[in-house]
Every structure is written in structure tokens, then in C-alpha cells.
């Protein structure tokens, strides 16, 4: 809150009050000059006016410093202004005031109320307006509608300014948060670049140097390699869910599977497919990868290959794992025991495509999914 108060949006308000105070002083001085002949003690009007002028100049400088916009100055402002108002009783005289002559501090007495509203919000403004309004009414000693209207106007002005300040503070905070967020984003991008240039390189180096070693060193190298792949995917920050119109980029979806054990290859550009087709293919690939994890030894390499043909898209998931006997595969499938394979086949057939599974013991398994492109509209 203090930050919002010291910066940006409040400074113009304080300047506006200073200008108002100066204008009000000029107006009050003009009224004094034109009415001085009717005063009870006209000589005393000039020292009061001088004090008001001095106070106007002092507050202009005093309120310019955010550190001084606190209780002592606000209370002093209020008291001095009340003093100038009250002096009217002796200078102008009771009868003059009752006859409708303005007070010495007319209009000028609103300035400290607005100051309280700006510094203390709605509550500060209301308190100051009530105190100043009561003083004004007591000094003028007549309680008709016109007198009350002045006090009510001052109260409404204080409430309005108090609200305005609160909104300005909220706006200021939002702005600051937005700036902060932007800075954080920029910082994150810079970090991603740095990680790319340093940490990734070191991890790759550790993996490379330890790759041939046995035991713990080899294990450390393998871990470094895994982390390198994971970190690379993280900082690459490709948005897989970004739709291109109603289409999705299949390459972006599948790229997220890239790791130390999974290689993803395909064309350099986007492979656009209708969102449903892309998502179903993605799910089929996930099932195929899951199958490898379930049935093959850890460390089995998987190759994900995407071909973008004019009429169809071919996705191949090949592993270099243990593989299955061809007749066993057919047998299991016939008996409905190949849950994962069936899930792949089901998804691809629903898209009007076909699945080809090739496997041999020791040769790994190759799942080739071919899906027709939807007719280009």
C-alpha cells in the first residue's frame, strides 16, 4: 500500500490539491477585499489572510514529500484551517456572519478535508469532512438548507476522492503485478537459454564420458543422460496443445515423448491433422509406448517415426526389445489376450486407418499405424 501511495497515481492528486488550495486562497482574498468594510475588526483580517497564504505555501511543499503525508501534518492542517475559520467570528463579527457574509476561509477550508481523503481513504475523508463541516456551521451560526448543502457537498467530495484513491491503489497494484509477471516470464526465458547453454551441455558431457564405464559411474552417466533429455524437453517449452485452427500438430504432440530412450523423428514442419485424429493417434502411440515399458527390459530403445504423405499419415513405433514369435502374436490376438494391441487397433480403425504389427524374437516389435487424412475442405 505504501508503495502505491508513494508512486505514480497519487502524485497528480496532491498537485491538484495544492492548485485548488491556491485558487481557493485567491477567492477568499477577493471576498475579504470586497467585504472588509462590513467587518467588525477589519484590521485583523489581514494577519489571518497572511497566515492562510503562508500555510498554503508551506503545505504545497510539505505534501509534495510522500514521507510527510501523515497524521501530524494532516491534523495540523485541519487545526490551522479550523483556526482561520473560527477567527471569522471575531473579524467578521456574529451579526455579519448571521447576515450571510462568507467566512474568511470560505472554499479554502475544503483543502485539508480532501488531503485527509487522499491520505486516509474514505474513512479519513469522512471524519475530516464531519469535523470541518461542524466547525463551519458553528462559525456561521445559521442552520438553514444552504449551510447544510455546503457541508454535505464537502462530505460527498471526501467520499468520492477516498474511493478514487482506493481504486487508484488497486489499479497501481495490478499494474505492478503485471510488470512483475512479465519480468518473471522474461527471467524464465533467460534461464531456459542459460540452462540450454550450460547445464544441458554438462549433463551431456557427463553422460558421454561415463557411458562406457561399469557400475556406479555408468549408472550416474545414465542418470545424467535421462535428466538431460527431460530438461531439454522442459526448456524447449513447445506447446503441444496449441491448435492450428481446428487442427493439431501431431509432431508437437509426439515430441513430448522424446527422452533418453525414445527418439522422435519426422518432418521439420508441422504435421497438421484434425484435432480428433491427432488426439486418437497420440493415445494409440501412448498405448504402444506403454506396451514397450510393460513387456521389455528397462533401457529398451524406442523409435517413433512420423511420415506425412499427401493422402495419409503413417506413425511407426519400433522398439529394439525382445520381440514376440509371429505365431504367438497371432494366437494371442485371436484369443483377445492382447489388450494393448487391441486398444491401438480399435483407435486406429475408428479413424479409418490400419495397423500392421511386425515382430520377431530378438528383433523387437514394430507397430505401424496408417491413418487417412480427412478430405481437405
Amino acid at each position: 500500500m505504501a508503495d502505491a501511495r508513494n508512486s505514480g497515481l497519487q502524485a497528480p492528486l496532491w498537485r491538484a490539491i495544492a492548485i485548488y488550495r491556491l485558487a481557493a486562497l485567491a477567492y477568499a482574498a477577493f471576498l475579504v477585499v470586497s467585504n472588509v468594510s462590513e467587518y467588525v475588526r477589519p484590521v485583523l483580517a489581514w494577519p489571518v489572510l497572511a497566515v492562510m497564504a503562508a500555510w498554503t505555501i508551506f503545505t504545497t511543499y510539505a505534501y509534495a514529500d510522500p514521507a510527510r503525508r501523515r497524521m501530524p501534518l494532516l491534523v495540523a492542517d485541519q487545526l490551522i484551517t479550523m483556526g482561520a475559520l473560527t477567527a471569522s467570528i471575531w473579524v467578521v463579527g456574529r451579526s455579519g456572519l448571521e447576515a450571510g457574509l462568507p467566512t474568511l476561509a470560505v472554499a479554502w477550508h475544503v483543502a485539508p478535508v480532501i488531503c485527509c481523503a487522499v491520505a486516509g481513504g474514505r474513512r479519513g475523508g469522512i471524519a475530516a469532512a464531519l469535523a470541518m463541516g461542524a466547525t463551519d456551521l458553528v462559525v456561521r451560526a445559521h442552520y438553514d438548507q444552504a449551510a447544510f448543502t455546503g457541508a454535505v457537498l464537502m462530505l460527498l467530495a471526501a467520499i468520492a476522492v477516498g474511493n478514487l484513491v482506493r481504486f487508484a491503489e488497486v489499479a497501481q497494484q495490478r499494474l505492478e503485478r503485471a510488470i512483475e509477471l512479465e519480468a518473471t516470464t522474461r527471467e524464465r526465458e533467460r534461464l531456459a537459454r542459460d540452462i540450454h547453454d550450460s547445464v544441458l551441455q554438462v549433463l551431456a558431457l557427463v553422460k558421454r564420458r561415463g557411458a562406457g564405464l561399469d557400475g556406479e559411474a555408468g549408472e550416474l552417466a545414465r542418470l545424467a543422460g535421462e535428466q538431460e533429455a527431460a530438461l531439454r524437453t522442459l526448456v524447449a517449452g513447445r506447446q503441444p496443445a496449441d491448435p492450428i485452427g481446428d487442427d493439431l500438430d501431431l509432431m508437437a504432440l509426439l515430441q513430448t515423448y522424446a527422452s533418453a530412450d525414445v527418439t522422435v523423428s519426422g518432418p521439420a514442419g508441422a504435421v497438421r491433422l484434425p484435432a480428433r485424429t491427432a488426439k486418437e493417434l497420440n493415445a494409440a502411440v501412448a498405448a504402444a509406448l506403454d506396451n514397450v515399458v510393460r513387456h521389455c527390459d528397462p533401457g529398451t530403445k524406442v523409435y517413433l517415426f512420423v511420415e506425412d504423405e499427401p493422402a495419409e499419415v503413417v506413425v511407426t513405433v519400433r522398439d529394439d526389445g525382445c520381440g514376440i514369435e509371429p505365431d504367438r502374436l497371432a494366437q494371442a490376438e485371436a484369443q483377445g489376450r492382447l489388450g494393448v494391441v487391441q486398444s491401438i487397433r480399435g483407435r486406429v480403425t475408428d479413424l479409418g486407418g490400419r495397423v500392421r504389427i511386425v515382430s520377431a524374437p530378438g528383433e523387437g516389435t514394430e507397430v505401424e499405424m496408417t491413418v487417412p487424412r480427412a478430405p481437405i475442405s
Partner: protein
Amino acid sequence: MSAIRVMVVDDHPMWREGVSRDLTAAGYDVVATSGEGRQAVRIAAAARPDVVVLDLQLPDVSGVEVINGLRAELPGVRILMLSASGEQQDVLDAMKAGATGYLLKSAGQAEFLDAVSRTAAGDTVFTPGLAGLVLGEFRRLAVAPAAGARDETPKLTERETEVLRLVAKGLSYRQIAERLVLSHRTVQNHVQNTLGKLQLHNRVELTRYALQNGLAPLGEDPAP
């Protein structure tokens, strides 16, 4: 036989040293190292390496620019490109510009040394990822509206396509040779041809562009 001269270009000093040490231990002569592309081109002119191990991402200039610079200074130089991550379009552009091999930085030490020796021997080093990129590029060229006559668009033979698909699926040359009943050498030649076609097409395109825009082809005197 004198040792093969290698130059290592990478902006990461630790990596540069590690790779240089491995290469020296394996009997190569590391004649120069550099952390910047422009400096690398200048040094290469004097150090005359046979093989340049080049990081795709350098702080000052793009991989394509470094490759063009190196090939202008040393026309016969072999360039093995490394990258830490799969900046696919950059990798493809660099290969088209004339790199002779590509390897991921996460490759193991043995794989790396094998790649350097194959590069030095004049072979093309492909990763499954690169095979996918090259296949994708040929398909893109086949459907893209041709700038000139249709028959100028490079095409792969059926065999070449078959071989590249198997490379993309992660099979080694030995496995591909067994599966297609070919010799290891023939598989290697098919892979090399696909890259050659792409690089030739790239040069033709660049020359056409230069002529259309009134520029002289690179490395040739302007017509009188």
C-alpha cells in the same frame, strides 16, 4: 599414415576440452578449437583440418553461415554437426548447406568416435531423426509447387526411400543390409545419395535465386 586433423567448434569450453581429449586419446590430431563461428572460419583457413566437429548453435552466426564459410575456405572439408537439442529446421538447413554428418550431443563416447572416423572416411553419418527430416523434406518438395520445371525437383528412388525409412526407425546399417539383402556399403551409398541430391538441389536453388536477383553465383566471377 599421418593422423587425421580435426577441429572442434563449440561455445562451451568444458565440452570443447572433453571432446578434444577424447579425440586425442583416440589418435586424432586436434589442430584447432574455437568457440565462435567467424573465428572458426578464420582459424580453419590456416589450420586446414580434415574434419570439423561443429556445434549447430554458436553465439555469433548461424550453423549454415559457418558451414558456407568453412566450405568456401576448404572445399573438401568434412563437417560433423552436433546439436544438444532437436532444432529440426536448423539441422535440416545445415545438412542442405553441406554438412556431411549429424549426431546428437547426447550420443555416447563410442558412438561419437565412430561418427568422427566415418566422417573422416567420407561416409555420411545419419541419425534416425535426420533420416525423418530428409524424408520429410523430399515429400515437401514433391508436393510443393515447383519453382521451375517439374523434373528439376529431386526425387528418391524406391530403394533410397526404403533405406531412409529403416534408418528413421532406428535400424543400424548392418540391420538394414541384412533385412534388404544388400551389402553394408550399398546401404551407406544409398544414404549418402539422398543427402547428395538434397545438397545439389539446394545449390541449384541458391544459384537460381542469385541469377533471378542479379547476383553472381557464389565463388564465381560475375559474367562480363
